[in-house]
């Protein structure tokens, strides 16, 4: 029986964590009850991107975009939409329906309109467990083209011409990297997919692996062919069980279809892929530490040179590419470098996937052409800042990046421009920071992360990150001095300059960038003993303004009973007893409580 409608259920980890797992069962039940189960195809897809509004159900052929779907909504969708053809308007994502009740294809929604999907081309659209859906969307044609119509040199040259640069953060031209490894003669070479995504809040790679694992496999195979490797590894963190499962299925299917193994497409090229699980150490995303980990050693970086392209896994030439980079590769080879490099800017080609988070309306996964401005991403795609707050900064590059102030909002996203702005592309974390945040506190957050994640090998990173965090604590506690700011800056510069690997070299970036762009805020902490963002506990106290309506909610919730006031009367806080936990501030229905 051919299905007349497809129901796509977003099964990305974000939607699953919001309860998407049981939606399919609900559909099964109700469709069966209605006797139309056979007419409808149910597809669990990867992440559709707009995670803030998940879980999603998308119904084709109409392309109706249902958001924030709960189990109980499924019956309605089945009865009304699928059985009777009545679109359930109240469940449709607000922006996907016009005032005239016209349904917009979800690609017409503001969040998606400005996006260009290359890496995420199949994500949220296909069933990742079905290789035929990938093939139907031109999957593995790039591999066929590379193996049968192109020499290894030509593949590498095509990659160089495409201008594709590493999406893991460094931005090194992928083709150039391949050429090094290709040129190194060896009886054995390796190519590794770096799926050790570690930036806090970043989930681009996870979404790709869950939503379109074959694109990563195909990229890995093309890379293997180009450099002369017959063996690929996917190094993925064990915290991504769903991604690991999808990869296992994909590898098994590719083998079954003869796309992995011996003599692929009759070309004489053999390739095998093995999954290696990492324990989730951030440092294992660094190439040399990743290699050490695959070899069974402790995840510690080593000195470069020699670079892995010359001497990598088990001493053999090894290429390590990030998940997103690999997902781009089939697109580059299939459409050709010229098509690919039309997208983006002169120095940064193609698109970049970001996980947009923080104080933003449409948090989620976005893919934009290089050269898109931060303003477009934040306001047109991201929908702006919630609760009428002012934007303060945009943080990119995760714990290795920096903060970009609002004055640079029209900055076009490129590897170089972000570095010039004191930040970096990184692997794609983009955190929007509003006025209620403290830059000292945000630095503490990132440093806390790097301190935890330092492998402990080299002095500056092992000891220096800890001391930087402690200096931030001193500043945040109000006990800091201007000398402490200088000490912090000097220490940060030294750690950046003399650390062994990228983790330590980049760890001071949040501090350096924020000291550069937001120094007055740091100075306010040490000179005026004031936290302008109202975050640092030692420097603030909570106050109830006359907006108070006397609802008594705050007084009831206060864990130390320091709020007094009768019903419908202005309440007050006994600041000597207050522990500044902020519960009252969060619960106040009229925002009457402020920290000053």
């Amino acid at each position, binding site marked *: 029986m051919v299905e007349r409608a497809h129901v796509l259920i977003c099964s990305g980890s974000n939607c699953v964590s919001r309860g998407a797992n049981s939606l399919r069962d609900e559909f099964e039940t109700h469709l069966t009850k209605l006797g139309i189960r056979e007419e409808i195809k149910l597809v669990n897809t990867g992440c559709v991107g707009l995670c803030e509004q998940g879980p999603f159900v998308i119904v084709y052929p*109409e392309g109706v975009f249902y958001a924030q779907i709960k189990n109980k909504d499924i019956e309605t969708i089945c009865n009304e939409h*699928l059985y009777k053809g009545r679109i359930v308007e109240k469940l449709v994502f607000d922006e996907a329906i016009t005032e005239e009740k016209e349904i917009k294809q979800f690609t017409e929604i503001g969040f998606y309109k400005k996006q260009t999907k290359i890496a995420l081309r199949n994500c949220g659209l296909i069933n990742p467990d079905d290789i035929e859906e990938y093939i139907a969307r031109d999957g593995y044609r790039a591999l066929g083209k590379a193996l*049968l119509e192109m020499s290894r040199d030509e593949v590498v040259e095509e990659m160089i011409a495409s201008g594709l640069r590493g999406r893991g953060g460094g931005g090194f031209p992928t083709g150039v990297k391949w050429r090094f490894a290709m040129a190194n003669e060896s009886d054995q070479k390796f190519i590794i997919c770096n799926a050790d995504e570690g930036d806090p809040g970043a989930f681009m790679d996870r979404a790709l692996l869950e939503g379109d694992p074959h694109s990563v496999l195909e990229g890995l195979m093309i890379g293997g062919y180009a450099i002369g490797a017959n063996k690929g590894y996917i190094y993925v963190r064990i915290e991504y069980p769903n991604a690991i499962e999808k990869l296992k299925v994909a590898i098994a299917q590719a083998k079954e279809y003869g796309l992995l193994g011996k003599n692929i497409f009759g070309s004489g090229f053999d390739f095998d892929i093995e999954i290696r699980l990492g324990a989730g150490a951030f440092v294992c995303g660094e190439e040399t530490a990743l290699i050490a980990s695959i070899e069974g050693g402790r995840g510690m970086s080593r000195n470069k040179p020699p670079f892995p392209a010359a001497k990598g896994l088990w001493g053999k030439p090894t290429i390590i590419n990030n998940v997103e980079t690999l997902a781009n590769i089939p697109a580059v080879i299939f459409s050709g470098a010229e098509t690919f490099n039309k997208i983006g800017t002169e120095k940064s080609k193609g698109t970049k996937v970001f996980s947009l988070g923080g104080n933003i309306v449409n948090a989620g996964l976005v893919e934009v052409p290089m050269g898109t401005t931060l303003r477009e991403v934040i306001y047109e795609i991201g929908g702006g800042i919630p609760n009428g707050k002012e934007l303060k900064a945009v943080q990119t590059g995760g714990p290795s990046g920096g903060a970009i102030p609002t004055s640079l909002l029209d900055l076009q996203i490129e590897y170089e421009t972000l570095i010039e702005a004191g930040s970096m592309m990184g692997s794609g974390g983009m955190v929007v920071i509003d006025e209620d945040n403290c830059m000292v506190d945000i630095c503490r957050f990132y440093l806390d992360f790097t301190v935890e994640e330092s492998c402990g090998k080299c002095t500056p990173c092992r000891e220096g990150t800890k001391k930087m965090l402690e200096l931030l604590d001193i500043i945040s506690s109000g006990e800091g001095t201007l000398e402490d700011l200088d000490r912090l800056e000097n220490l940060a510069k030294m750690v950046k300059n003399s650390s062994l690997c990228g983790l330590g070299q980049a760890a001071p970036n949040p501090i350096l960038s924020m000291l550069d762009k937001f120094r007055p805020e740091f100075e306010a902490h040490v000179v005026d003993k004031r936290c302008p963002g109202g975050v640092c506990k030692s420097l603030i106290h909570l106050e109830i303004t006359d907006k108070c309506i006397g609802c008594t909610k705050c007084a009831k919730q206060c864990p130390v009973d320091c709020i007094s006031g009768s019903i419908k009367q202005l309440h007050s806080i006994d600041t000597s007893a207050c522990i500044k936990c902020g519960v009252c501030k969060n619960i106040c229905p009229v925002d009457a409580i402020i920290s000053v």
Partner: protein
Amino acid sequence: MKSLDDLKKIREAAQHKVIMRGGTLDSIKILVGMGTCGINAGARPIMTKFVEELAKRNLITVTVAPIDCTGNCDNTPIVKVVIDKKETTYGNVTEKMIAKIIKEHVEGGKPVQDYVLGNKK
């Protein structure tokens, strides 16, 4: 899989799996009135038959969907064929009419005037 041809075969055979998604469809839609009136008049088997008939002819880019009551409750089952936003409504549709509608209208581009609502006596 041994060659690019094999891949091509699989790709073509799998088109039906994905073509409905992602906006690559041409603009022919077959909409079947599925109000209570339509269901009572047997619209459901009509819709199923359309799906089967299209599949038989490998017209995988044409979509079939139920729509709400169109207000022509006296002439159910109602079927609308939309080509390039141009809508033709058939009334009192029976299974026997389906093959002809597909052949002449969907494939041939000419509405089956005899079946069009209002034309038929």
